[in-house]
């Protein structure tokens, strides 16, 4: 592993951007200043301000600066590409989850018979997927996105409750669903609340995607 690699390995992408940007700007200003002076005044020649004696130390210093700039830029560019690829993969997974969840849930809701076991199986799969994604996002330090996905799990759980929770016999609470022979009948208010939660999930997914891109 080269010394340069060791030096740049652990530097944050944004900090590297700043370092290399500042180096290139300083270098550019230095060169530009003398070129500009040279062309502005005919009386002003480079030799009047710059000792044209070639000092090996200066040449070496210049070469090292140029090599460092090229190497770091290359490394930085690769690091940025890798980070972008990671973000794109996570975003694609989150969007697939949202699309799959909406599609499967709508299929269930629009069935002529809503089987309780089909609903519980659907929610098991989707909660497991969502929790796996939340853990993955957390592992890659997208903390804001992780928080947004955790709140999505609450929404998914709310929908599961709306579809599978019948009140106790002693409860005075109005039943949002009726289950008979393992099949679910939905009250219209319950259907409305489920659709409202699905919309909230879509908004939550959008928020998570924005949080990942902003990271």
């Amino acid at each position: 592993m080269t010394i340069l690699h060791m030096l740049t390995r652990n530097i944050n992408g944004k900090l590297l951007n700043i370092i290399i940007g500042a180096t290139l700007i300083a270098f550019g200003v230095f060169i530009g200043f003398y070129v500009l002076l040279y062309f502005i005044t005919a009386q002003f020649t480079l030799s009047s301000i710059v000792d044209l004696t070639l000092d090996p130390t200066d040449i070496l210093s210049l070469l090292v600066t140029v090599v460092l700039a090229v190497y770091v830029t290359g490394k930085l560019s690769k690091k940025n590409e890798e980070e972008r690829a990671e973000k794109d993969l996570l975003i694609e997974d989150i969007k697939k989850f949202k699309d799959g969840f909406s599609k499967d849930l709508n299929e269930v809701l629009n069935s002529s018979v809503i089987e309780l076991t089909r609903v519980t199986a659907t929610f098991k799969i989707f909660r497991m997927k969502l929790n796996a994604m939340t853990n993955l996002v957390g592992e890659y330090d997208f903390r804001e996105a992780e928080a947004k996905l955790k709140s999505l799990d609450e929404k998914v759980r709310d929908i599961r409750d709306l579809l599978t929770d019948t009140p106790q016999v002693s409860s005075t609470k109005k039943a949002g669903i009726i289950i008979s022979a393992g099949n679910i009948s939905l009250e219209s208010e319950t259907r409305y609340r489920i659709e409202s939660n699905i919309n909230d999930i879509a908004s939550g997914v959008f928020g998570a995607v924005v949080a990942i891109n902003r990271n």
Partner: protein
Amino acid sequence: MDNIKISIAKDFSITPGPRYKKEGPFSGEEFKEKILNDAFSKALENGIKIVVDLDGTIGYGTSFLEEVFGGLAREKGIDNVKKTIEVISNEEKYLIDDIDDYITHANEKH
């Protein structure tokens, strides 16, 4: 004496159902009557735990879990259930928090 182990998938059904027997097969009420109540009395008498494994089913409805664990807490006492029942789930770890919630709030009208 060893702890009592119950696997819902192996000892009861891989398709847990609704809350009450009248609502459909493999209900929470049926699970308590056939398996959990006796095991709980035995565990309480002998000062041992019941380890309930949730893995291996196709999934759980809210009222099945609430009736099993919240219902047990209403019948036997929240503290007794918390000290006697241990829930494990490798597939859906978040269910353990859900169940703890059902037990804690068992006496609130649901």
